[in-house]
């Protein structure tokens, strides 16, 4: 591989910054790609990777910095112009129109048909007809078609966002081979992936983002994985107080688990997940984005039906057709996206009292004093700032999150499903949420806690399961769940080690 590449930069982004309201998504992101290079763009969840990609591809306009493609300024406001300047992205979701056939999609994008078909064949897809409807093709094929469509216009820079995520192994190999050929032929590629093995095989350099800024730009060489993991995590930040319960861990008491899941599968992403959650326990769930954790929580909260596997609650098998069924069994859900959970135009009180009124028998007159007492209790417990009582959307993110949790505290918590409860909220509120979670557990609640911030496992959980590719790949006790271990496991590296040890 050509490390000593001194060719001029084809794509040069420097000091790119972007704010959304009060939140800085990017502060100082930079990326340089030269002709004939494959550069990996890496970063942990929330590092600003997706925002950076949107800016590079023209879907967002940056607040600061510049993006130059072949020396021309390219901070454009729409994808069409970015394409014209020579950068063609392949997004995680295919950008083909599902209700049109292949030929129409090509025509829509002004893609030449001959080279497209050649690339499709080259990439290992057989039997594609131009009158196949996009909506009828499997996801893996669509991603390949997206790639073939991009290659057919001979772009200067190809941006592949998690290109290999939904592909079977044989197609992955074809893609890697073709991408490498592109680079060898003098084109440039930006490669975004969670898979170290592919990056090691394919890339020349890696640019690493952390907290909205580029922290390193290193050549890929054997054994670089550990260094990259370290860079993505950053220096160990000032730690909160680690609150792990004393005495015998809840999962070792031999009691019936509150929630016992086995072999659970749903949709293409959730394949085979099983775990036991005991009363008094906080079980962490760690996974990279899109490894099936969303589906897991959706199934447990009654939003989605399982394709296979069992869910037992206190030893009894259960299945849910509606969230109301899950709630009746004591499974209450706090989703990651607060906009999904809150009545934004309504008051704190109405939001917290909502589950109390859900059943038909509570449709009548509300006992206002009783309600005020229960809501008041939840507000006190969570220290919700109620100065802006009127509408929940005027509260800060942290207070909004407290309201969604408070809703279930007002009804009494049995099993709480928390999906990334501290996403995008301030440090002070975070520090209030961890002890609260611990306290609820000590009072006998069972809590499933997905987090995208790895240090939270030691701050709030007793154990953690790690999900990769729709399966549980590791179970780690909080005592051993330092970020390094979790990150390795989440990237499937631990599993890889084991496989290597066996072979």
């Amino acid at each position, binding site marked *: 591989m050509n490390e000593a590449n001194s060719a001029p930069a084809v794509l040069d982004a420097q000091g790119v910054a972007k704010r959304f309201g009060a939140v800085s998504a990017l502060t100082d992101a930079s990326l340089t790609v030269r002709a004939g290079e494959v550069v990996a763009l890496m970063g942990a969840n929330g590092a600003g990777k997706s925002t950076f990609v949107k800016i590079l591809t023209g879907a967002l306009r940056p607040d600061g910095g510049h993006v130059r493609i072949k020396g021309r300024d390219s901070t454009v406001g729409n994808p069409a112009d970015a394409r014209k300047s020579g950068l063609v992205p392949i997004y995680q979701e295919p950008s083909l*129109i599902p*209700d*049109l056939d292949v030929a129409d999609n090509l*025509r*829509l994008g002004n893609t030449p048909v001959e080279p497209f078909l050649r690339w499709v064949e080259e990439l290992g897809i057989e039997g594609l007809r131009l009158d196949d409807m996009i909506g*009828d093709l499997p996801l893996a094929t669509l991603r390949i078609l997206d790639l073939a469509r991009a290659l057919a216009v001979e772009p200067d820079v190809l941006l592949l966002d998690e290109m290999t995520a939904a592909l079977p192994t044989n197609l992955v190999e074809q893609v890697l081979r073709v991408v490498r050929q592109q680079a060898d032929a003098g084109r440039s590629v930006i490669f975004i992936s969670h898979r170290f093995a592919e990056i090691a095989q394919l890339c020349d350099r890696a640019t690493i983002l952390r907290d909205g800024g580029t922290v390193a730009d290193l050549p890929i060489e054997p054994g670089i994985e550990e260094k990259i993991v370290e860079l993505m995590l950053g220096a160990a930040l000032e730690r909160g107080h680690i609150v792990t319960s004393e005495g015998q861990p809840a999962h070792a008491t031999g009691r019936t688990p509150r929630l016992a899941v086995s072999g659970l599968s749903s949709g293409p992403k959730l394949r085979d997940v099983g775990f036991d959650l005991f009363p008094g326990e906080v079980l962490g769930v760690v996974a990279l984005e899109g490894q099936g954790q969303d589906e897991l929580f959706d199934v447990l909260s009654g939003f989605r039906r399982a394709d296979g596997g069992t869910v037992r609650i206190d030893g009894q098998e259960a299945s849910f057709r509606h969230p109301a069924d899950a709630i009746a069994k004591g499974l209450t859900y706090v989703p990651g996206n607060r906009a999904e959970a809150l009545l934004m135009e309504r008051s704190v009180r109405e939001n917290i009292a909502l589950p109390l009124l859900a059943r038909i028998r509570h449709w009548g007159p509300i006992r206002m004093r009783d309600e005020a007492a229960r809501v008041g209790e939840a507000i006190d417990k969570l220290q919700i700032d109620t100065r802006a009582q009127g509408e929940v959307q005027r509260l800060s993110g942290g207070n909004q999150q407290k309201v969604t949790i408070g809703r279930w505290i007002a009804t009494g918590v049995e099993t709480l499903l928390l999906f990334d409860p501290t996403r995008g909220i301030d440090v002070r509120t975070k520090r209030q949420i961890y002890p609260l979670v611990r306290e609820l557990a000590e009072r006998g609640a069972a809590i499933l806690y997905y987090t995208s911030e790895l240090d939270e496992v030691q701050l709030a959980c007793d154990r953690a399961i790690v999900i990769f590719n729709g399966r549980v790949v590791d179970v780690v006790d909080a005592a051993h769940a330092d970020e390094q271990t979790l990150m390795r496991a989440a990237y499937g590296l631990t599993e890889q080690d084991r496989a290597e040890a066996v072979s």
Partner: protein
Amino acid sequence: MMRLISKNRWTMGLFVVLALLFVVTKIIQPDFGASGVESLARASLPFAFATAAMAVVVIAGGIDLSVASMMAVASVTAAVLMQGASDAMAIPIVILVLVIGVIMGAINGALIVITKVPDIVVTLAMLFVWEGVALLILNAPGGAAADWLEALIVGGTGLLGIPKALIVLAVCVLVVWIPLRRSRLGLSIYAIGSDENAAFRSGIAVGRTRIIAYAICGLFAAMGGLSLTMSTGIGEPIPGPYLLASVAAVVLGGVVLGGGKGGLIGPIVAVFILRLVRMDLTLMSVDPNVTTIVEGTIMVAVVMLGGVLAIRSARS
């Protein structure tokens, strides 16, 4: 692949249903023949145009509740202008009315794009506005239509006795639709209805495409209004029951509410099916009001079926 077949199968199925209905009609009324087909075609004409108008915006992922009101505006404009005008003047009048239709549709589309108010609300408000405009132009049924225009849709042609109305319909729809369907613009209309995000990423100007889709809807609505004036000889300011009928025909014709799927042939065949059902009921001397009920029930049932199917497909 399966859906490619099944999509055609849906339209084929509609043709079969239509054929069966013709057989039923023949059994009910043994002397049902060319003249029956002719009056069916004539009665279906405004419905067919309304349905074509609705189909275009539904394919683009929208809906236009003001279709019937725009037809009324076109109808009264034509009738008022043609009263006392010479036959030759009728041609520029027709063209003017079509242009007005395009403008009305474009206004609807532009309001949706600019105000960001949902299409259903904007077109509901515009339903009232266009209705008001029609009333201002002509506050009671009246006006006239050029004789040759009326003659254009009455009777059959020498060709196998195919009704003239059917030819007019085919020509008008095909002239607009065929060049559009295969063009990049037509594909864009399908694209924004199918997956707006993917369309945006593919570099389609979503807003502009939406406005054009509504403008085409307005054009078809204007044709519908003209056909009303042509078949009755007067302008009618109060819109007929074309809104619900067009939604029902669109759904029955295999265009999914939500966009991206279907074409114009299915919905237009569906119009003939719905009209023929009505005709059969009349032939069986069922009270016309009962016929209205049956028709309304069929339409509501079809729309509900469409809703259930949409839920199903969203789940799978």
